[in-house]
């Protein structure tokens, strides 16, 4: 990581302010490795973040431009920004599960619909952990949190029959993948695919929260137990077991098959502008 830190990150923010034992760094690193392997410079990428653990701990870590948006709205900001910045710049967003799948879900769907270029890495710590550990939209069934003291009994959005990635696929996303943070190489490969899509990509990555999820759900802040708890409940697509919660791998790969939002806007606007200028000159 030291080599990558020198090349892409701000030393002032690395190590980050994440809790000891937090798995966010694995997801964060996977994205930076993917960026490096694709040969991008830090000027090529604008890094956006949101509210919550995922946003706060990754904001201003990137050596280039950074923005941290209001809770759930970074997808709308990104669409506006996409129109204004040079086409060759890439937008990467590190956001939380509450941000993407809760408060920001409407904006996320419209970002997918418009196929605006953004690589969204949803860093999922299975609930609202920066506020102390309340259940969220990906909290596994039966898990105790500060706001589900009798166990999570509401349906969540990672069940096979109602998978949020299916919703996003139907909404027009052109690249979708799911991983757990300890996936290593497959996670990096998905991030690389996502970055190569001139359109809307989302990588859902579950990572362990020791401080609150571990304490509430597992009754301990033992880092190794928490890491294993997630790892043992993840399996690659097609290799699921009965107790698999997270089926990992690429869910939808339609990269570069649909016009990108800002490209479509640019093309249409120049067409209209030409037509109007032609008419005006007669």
């Amino acid at each position: 990581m030291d080599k990558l830190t020198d090349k892409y990150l701000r030393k002032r923010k690395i190590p980050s302010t994440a809790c000891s034992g937090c798995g966010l760094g694995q997801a964060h690193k996977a994205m930076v490795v993917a960026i490096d392997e694709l040969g991008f410079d830090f000027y090529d990428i604008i890094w956006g973040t949101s509210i919550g653990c995922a946003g706060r701990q990754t904001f201003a870590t990137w050596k280039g431009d950074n923005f941290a948006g209001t809770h759930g709205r970074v997808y709308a900001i990104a669409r506006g920004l996409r129109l204004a910045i040079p086409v060759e710049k890439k937008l990467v967003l590190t956001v939380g599960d509450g941000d993407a799948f809760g408060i920001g879900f409407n904006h996320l769907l419209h970002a997918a619909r418009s196929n605006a270029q953004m690589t969204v890495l949803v860093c999922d710590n299975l609930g609202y952990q920066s506020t102390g550990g309340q259940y969220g939209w990906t909290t596994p069934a039966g898990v105790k949190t500060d706001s589900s003291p009798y166990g999570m009994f509401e349906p969540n959005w990672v069940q096979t029959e109602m998978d949020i990635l299916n919703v996003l696929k139907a909404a027009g996303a052109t690249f979708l993948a799911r991983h757990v943070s300890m996936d290593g190489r497959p996670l990096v490969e998905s991030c690389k695919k996502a970055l190569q899509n001139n359109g809307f990509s989302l990588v859902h990555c579950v990572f362990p929260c020791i401080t609150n999820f571990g304490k509430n759900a597992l009754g301990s802040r033992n880092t190794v137990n928490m890491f294993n708890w997630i790892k043992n409940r993840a399996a690659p697509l097609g290799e699921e077991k009965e107790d698999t919660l997270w089926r990992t791998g690429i869910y939808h790969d339609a990269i570069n098959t649909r016009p990108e939002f800002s490209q479509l806007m640019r093309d249409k606007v120049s067409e209209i502008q030409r037509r109007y200028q032609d008419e005006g000159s007669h």
Partner: protein
Amino acid sequence: MLAGCNAFAGYPITPATEIAEAMSVNLPRIGGYYMQAEDECAAMHLAIGASLGGMKAMTATSGPGFILYADPYGWAIGCEIPLVVLNSQRVGPVSGITGAPGQGEFYNVRYPTQGGNYETIVLAPNSAQEAMLMTVEAFYLSERFRTPVTILADQLITDGFEDISVPETDEEKKAMGMRFMERKAHPGPEFYPPTDEIDIPPVVLGVGTKALCSDWTPTEEGYDIETVEAQHKHSYRMIYKIRNHKDIISRHETLFLDDEPDIIVVAYGSASRTVKTAVKKAREKGQKIGMIRPISVWPFPDELFQYKAKYLSVELDYDGQMVREVQRAAPGDSEIHFFGKCGELPTVAELHETFDKLLSGEQLSRIGWEREAW
């Protein structure tokens, strides 16, 4: 568009829809973008995104949409992002009456977001012509102060039909008092200097400045920090960059204030139009009545209220909003009165009846809650 606006984000809402429609027609013809959002919250965020990328952006709505701007408005204030926002007031609360003028947003535009620790700039035109001029001015001020500027209009201004005179040459623009400011990009690294100075370029992303902007309290470079000292410095800038340069923002119209008038009528926006007629006609009858029309309503022009007189605030609301500011700004022993009406303009006859009563020391005929507080 005269001011260089090249991005507009909208969400349909009466009575501001026509602005979005007009922008969807005209912006692409000059190479600009009209974006329609999934809601008003997204609309202002889209506009902010475009502005962060270096474009001159605008959004327009009415009260029920303006409350959804609360979230992005605060972000734009904190990150100091230039932006123009139009709020065309209808009758509230909630959806209320959609196709009629109100002025219930007077305080809403002063406090458009949570948290305090900021000043806002709000311009309130009273005609289509002035709406054009004030929109150009709003873009100018938003760049110099690097903050969102709100145009406080109402249903009659955005839905009404009036001839306007559009300048074509630079001389004509200058003659109309139009001022312009190009977008510049802050070179960094101290993007958020804790000073009241203006004319500091805003953060622009994508131009290689290693920019930082966030919803958190920033250090001078833009890193997130949670210290009282940093928050104090940031707040100082949010407040005093505007308070200490109020002279650049202030504009108003006054009428017949030179002969110690008995009554000074205060009105802004559409309401001021019948007020002006009523005041002029009252003068013809020999009544000593003057008028103050704030055009820049925030920061509130306290300095205009130095005369000792009976003040009458005429507003398109029943609860009395601007009258509170008049009461605060006027000399301590002034009598303060309120005339409120909503959904339609006060008539000249109604205003004359009110003037007569105030001049003869009678109680205003409007009863109960409409006057008891004042």
